[in-house]
Every structure is written in structure tokens, then in C-alpha cells.
């Protein structure tokens, strides 16, 4: 059992880079399409896009083991794609159709897949942290070797229940990796205006180690995730990764993002995580044409998902009444 993190740099193979590129591009193209469908009035209500943050979930998910569970907030499309959930089922849920993961009854913020160990999609800020700590509790109770990766945003990190759960997770040495996706804004309020101190350091008082990671670089995220997961899986209790990232779009589709400047956004786009991997792949000898082919394949998958999401019928009216309760045996 290692109680200290190893300091081994992650050396990606060409195959790793190809996977990162594919996974991140799938998220970006999927989100772009979701944005389009929203603009067409096919997606309603809330729709929180992940564009710009792709390296976070990709770096972490690829470091996980199959028995690990994942839970996140309402900015959840990318986490589902990373968990290998079907883009068609996700997009059809966004359009509120029967073919969606929740048969159209959950929407953008509420999808789940037991098969893929994905436990939502939660709309209440801070809730996913407590629920994720509970998933970790179940890994420990069942002794199944799994770790729960519980995502939260920089906004969630301020919630009282997060501190409550840090305390219990540390006290009981629960196998949970807390990932704070710090995209610098809790809705429209910048971190500087909503959070005192440094978010990953908030575990210190509970004896939970943590670190800040460059979330615009998938290799750095992957390296930190591998080490953190190893630490947690070895029975040391929780770990906090504060992943510094940026969302290119507003908080949700209805957000014009007037609280930040165009220059700030352009500067961040210069630091694009997908472009970085693209450059590395080209260094490895992958041609522009090969990369275009990948993009074309992904666009085809996303197009099919969008078609499915429009063709799949709305849920039957009888669905209104089902799934309120599980019928007792």
C-alpha cells in the first residue's frame, strides 16, 4: 500500500494520444451539435455545455478501472460520453424522447447508467459530492476494489455538505476521488468573487491531500489522475484534484456571458486541449488527413445521434405514471 503519491510522469503512447484526441473531439462535436439543436428549439430547458473542459473528464476517465463509479453535476454530457454511454441515448434524452437514457423523463441534467457505472447527472449544486461519497461507501462496504470519482464545480466546492463529506470520507477512509472542475465561474460569479482561499486546500484540515492540475492539458490530468486513483485505491482515503479549466460557452445556453471579456475567452482558446493533442499526434507522424478522417467519423456519429434524437418518438402518455415507485415484490 503506497501512502504517498508516486512521481512518475505519464508517457503517452501514440495509441493513448489517439484515444485522447478521439474522446475529446467526440465531446466537442457532440456539444456543438447539442448547442445547434438547442438553437433549433429541439432541446428545452437547461443545457450546460462542456466545450473547453474536455481534457478533464478524458484524462481522468482513461485512468480509471472498470469497477470505478462516476457521478457528476448537471454539466454531465461529457462524463457520459467518457463512460462509453451511447451518444444516441444521450442526445435523445436532450430532445426528451423515448429513446433517451431516461425515456425523456430526466433531460440534460438527469441520466444514469448502471451498466457503465455512471450515477448521474444531478441538478442540485453540491449533491453529487455527498452522493458520490455514498457510492464510495458502497465500494468499501462491498470491498469490490472500486473508487468513486465524484465531480463537482468550483461553485459546488463552497457548499456546506462538501465539507461534511470531506470529514466523513476522511474519517472512514472512503475510496473517493473528489474532482473539482474549476472553470473559474460559479454560474456568472468568478472564483475571485465567490471562493476564499484555494479550493483543493480545503481538504487539509481533514487530512485530505490534494493538488491543482492544468486542466487544459490532458496528459497532466491523466498523470495526476493515475497517481491520485492509486493513492485512493490503496486504502488511504480520499484525495482532491482541483483541475483548472475553462468553458468556452456560457453557464447554460441562455447565458450571454457578459461577466467576462472576449479577450479572456480568446486567450483561453489559444490554450485549447484538443489542439495540443493534435500537435503531439502530428509530431508522432499522424497526418492531417488522418486527423480529418477521425473528425469526419466523429461528425458522422454525432449526426446519427442527432437524427436518432429527432426521429425517436416522444414518450407515450402512459409514461407519465410509470417509474414513480418500484413495485414491491
Amino acid at each position, binding site marked *: 500500500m503506497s501512502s504517498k503519491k508516486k512521481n512518475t510522469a505519464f508517457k503517452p503512447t501514440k495509441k493513448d494520444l489517439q484515444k485522447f484526441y478521439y474522446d475529446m473531439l467526440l465531446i466537442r462535436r457532440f456539444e456543438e451539435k447539442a448547442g445547434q439543436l438547442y438553437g433549433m428549439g429541439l432541446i428545452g430547458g437547461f443545457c450546460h455545455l462542456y466545450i473547453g473542459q474536455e481534457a478533464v473528464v478524458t484524462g481522468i476517465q482513461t485512468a480509471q478501472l472498470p469497477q470505478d463509479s462516476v457521478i457528476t453535476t448537471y454539466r454531465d454530457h461529457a462524463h457520459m460520453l467518457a463512460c462509453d454511454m451511447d451518444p444516441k441515448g444521450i442526445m435523445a434524452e436532450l430532445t426528451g424522447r423515448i429513446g433517451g437514457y*431516461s425515456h425523456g423523463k430526466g433531460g440534460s441534467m*438527469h441520466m444514469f447508467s448502471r451498466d457503465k457505472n455512471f450515477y448521474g447527472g444531478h441538478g442540485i449544486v453540491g449533491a453529487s459530492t455527498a*452522493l458520490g*461519497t455514498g457510492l464510495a461507501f458502497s465500494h468499501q462496504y462491498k470491498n469490490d476494489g472500486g473508487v468513486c470519482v465524484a465531480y463537482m464545480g468550483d461553485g459546488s466546492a463552497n457548499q456546506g455538505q462538501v465539507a461534511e463529506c470531506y470529514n466523513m470520507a476522511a474519517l472512514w477512509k472512503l475510496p473517493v476521488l473528489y474532482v473539482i472542475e474549476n472553470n473559474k465561474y460559479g454560474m456568472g460569479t468568478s472564483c475571485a468573487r465567490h471562493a476564499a482561499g484555494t479550493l483543493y486546500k480545503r481538504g487539509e484540515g481533514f487530512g485530505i491531500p490534494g493538488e491543482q492540475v492544468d486542466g487544459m492539458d490532458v496528459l497532466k490530468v491523466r498523470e495526476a489522475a493515475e497517481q491520485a486513483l492509486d493513492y485512493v485505491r490503496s486504502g488511504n482515503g480520499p484525495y482532491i484534484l482541483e483541475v483548472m479549466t475553462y468553458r468556452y460557452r456560457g453557464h447554460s445556453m441562455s447565458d450571454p456571458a457578459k461577466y467576462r471579456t472576449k479577450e479572456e475567452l480568446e486567450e483561453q482558446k489559444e490554450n485549447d486541449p484538443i489542439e495540443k493533442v493534435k500537435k503531439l499526434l502530428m509530431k508522432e507522424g499522424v497526418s492531417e488527413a488522418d486527423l480529418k478522417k477521425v473528425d469526419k467519423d466523429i461528425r458522422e456519429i454525432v449526426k446519427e445521434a442527432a437524427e436518432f434524437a429527432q426521429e425517436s418518438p416522444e414518450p407515450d402518455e402512459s409514461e407519465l405514471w410509470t417509474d414513480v415507485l*418500484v413495485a414491491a415484490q
Partner: protein
Amino acid sequence: MPIDILMPALSPTMEEGKLAKWIKKEGDSVSAGDVIAEIETDKATMEVEAVDEGIIGKIVIAEGTENVKVNECIAILLEEGESKDAINDNDVPAPKAKKSKASKEDAAAAVSQSDASQPEGEEIKDRDILYAQGHVLPPEPFDEASFMADTVNQTVREALRDGMAEEMRRNGNVFLMGEEVAEYQGAYKVSQGLLEEFGPKRIIDTPITEHGFAGIGAGAAFRGLNPIVEFMTMNFAMQAIDHIINSAAKTLYMAGGQLGCPIVFRGPNGAAARVGAQHSQCYASWYGHIPGLKVVSPWNAADAKGLMKAAIRDPNPVLILENEIMYGQSFDVPTSEDFVLPIGRAKIEREGKDVTLVAYSIMVGKSLQAAEELAEMGIDAEVINLRTIRPIDRWTIIESVKKTNRIVSVEESWPFAGIGSEIAALVNEHAFDYLDAPVARVCAKDVPLPYAANLEKLAIPQVHDIIEAAKKVCYK
């Protein structure tokens, strides 16, 4: 002047206790703060400290004596210089004869008619859906009488504990978490002995952070565990209500049926005694409002065990609204481990033809007492023990009203949007033509619960309030 040392109360609800042990003996001198004796109730053990300085002149109550009343003289303290002769034996109240422990509880139980006939019930497909659509459905069949052939007398507290223990033996995924449930043996001693039998992996003390541990419980249930989350009182569950409603109750629906939350949230609900406004609220209508939750509220010990077992076995989130004052009362409880009460089925505690009294939790006992007094006035009341708040047993209520043509709802909660309001709407919708008088509600007064003993009594429904309401709907 010799000073009487009185039997102290360990809690606002304690009326009597056992004088377990004398630490000091006659002739010993004591200073203020010295431990002189140990007393015990079914909830706790406590040391009695001397308040004054002096010599123990006489021990009035021998150690081992049970049912010693609060404020009874247990010993006499002599001040410095006083001799034992100063004690006038005639002044010392004679210890009361040992009272049978169950006598008071027997009185409460006796007014429940064990032979009251119950609805036959019916197996119905898609019951939950039809219920949600507002249908009045006969409850599930259940032959309760057959279970009552073999019973044991126990307190509500013991029945709740045994219900949990039996289900924990049956299913390794069931565990209990909450404040003081393990080493302290339960703040109200409901989990007494469970740590010893099941160990710290399954009986888990939590910090005082309801929001966090309710969420941890719900998350554990998502992955197939069956948590029992105890709140020291339901008042504190307000800190956790987001997870009870948004996480536990709504996830199955939001997941299109893919992911449920088989969890039990439980704890004492409603007023205890003299604990003030923040510790005395009834939450039946709060949780009863929520689709995706089941809510039960036991009155007696048989209800407590049968509903506890049902709640733990249910694949849905279930709230158990218990009552602190009922914890120490004893009733007959079936010994069979198969005694699992169907959620959604009320019980007719007393048959009557003139007026229906419908109640839950502690108010069932008060309604039965009211029914006894009403009988003396020539009013034959039927008493329904709801047992389940949601899904409420509409059928049993409506059938009773069809027979009696008059109904009084009795609850410890406030009137606005209370369970009584729901019952009034239900009767209005389904039995309007049968009514010979408007539906009456007996509720707590619409104020935060006061501390002063006289005001508290005024605020909480009493037997005479129920009698008055019943007389009114009978135009007597």
C-alpha cells in the same frame, strides 16, 4: 432540618425509573457533587449527585427497586450536627408498592379492540399507478389476526430495534447509520445492542451532519445497499431534506426506472415533552406531499415492528415517523418474523357506527381514549389507525364514512395543508353524499410549540378536543 433527596428525571418524558445502585450507604458523609446512586430507565443510566453537603441519614428506597416515581423521596440527608433521630419516620413517605410495569400501557392497549373486523383487501395490478391517478382501491389483503395468536409484550422501542435486527440478519446489505446509534446505543436507545451483534461496519456513528450523511446514505442505496438512516429527531432532517426529496425520491423517475434508492429514513417525529418549538414538529404532511416517497407512522409496538420490516424490504425510499413518547409504551407484538405489515393498509382499531376518528401515531391512542369516553355519552366511535401516510388508505377511510356518515381527523400537525386537509378533500371527493356533517379536524394550534407546560398542553390536541369535535359532528 433533614433534607429529602428526590428521584430525579433523566429526561422531560421520564415519569419513573429503577434505583439501580446505592454508591453511598447510611452514615456516609457526602459533599455537593458526590455521586450517591445510579438510576436507570429503559433509555439510559445516570448517576445521582448530591446537591447538598451532609450525611446520608436514611436510605428510603432500596437499591434494585423498579418504577420509582420522579420526585419520590429516595433518601434523607442530615446536615452537619444533626443526628439520625432528627428523622421523623412519619414524615418519610412509605415507598409505594411495586407497580406492574405494563399497567399504564395495558390501559392504552385495552381500548383497542383486537377483534375489530378489517377490510379483506384485494391484490391489484399496477396499484401504485392507479393510486397516483387518484383511485380509491381496497388495500392489500393481510390476515393480521393470525399473527396475533402468538405475541410477546414489548415496548415500541424494542419492537423497532427487533424489526431492524431481524432484517439485518436476513440481508447483509442492510446497515444503520446516524448520530449516536452505535456506542451510545441510540440517543433514545432504539438501537440498543445492535453494535454488539452487528459490529461497527453495519452500525455506524456519524458526525452531527445530517445533510452529508443523508446524501451518503442515498448514494450507497444507488449501488444496491439498503441503508437505514436514523435522524435523532425528524426536526434535524430538515438539514437533509434535499437528499430525501431530490436525491432519494426523484431519481427513479428521472432515470426512467433504471436507478432506484432503497433506503429508510427514520426517527422520532412530533412533540416530545417540553422540548420547545425547534424539537417538536410533525412532518407527516411535508413528506406525504412527495411522489416517490412512502411514509409510515406507527402507533403501537406491533405497528412499529411490522412497518419497520416492511420499510426495510421495500425497494423505494421510506420515511418512518416515530414518536418519542410512544417509545416506552408496551404492547403485544407478533413473534413471527414474517409479520410484515403491508404499507398502504390502515387498521381499524375500534369498530363503531356513529362517527369515524382517523388518526396516526400517538393520536391513535388519544382517539381510542376519546372513543371510550364518547361511548359513555352514547356515541359509538370507529377509530382508524392510518399506519401509512403515503400511500394513504383511501378505501378504509371512505368505507368507514359510508357507514358512520361523520368523520373527525386527528393529528399532531398544524392545520394548514395538514393530513386532515387531505382527508377532508378525500371525503369531499368520494363520499360527499354520505356526509351528515362537515368533516372536522383536530390539529395542533397554528403556533410554534411553546415551552410552558400549560401552553404546550393547549397547543397539542388532547382527548377532550377529540371528544368535542366528535360531539360537534354528531350534533350533540
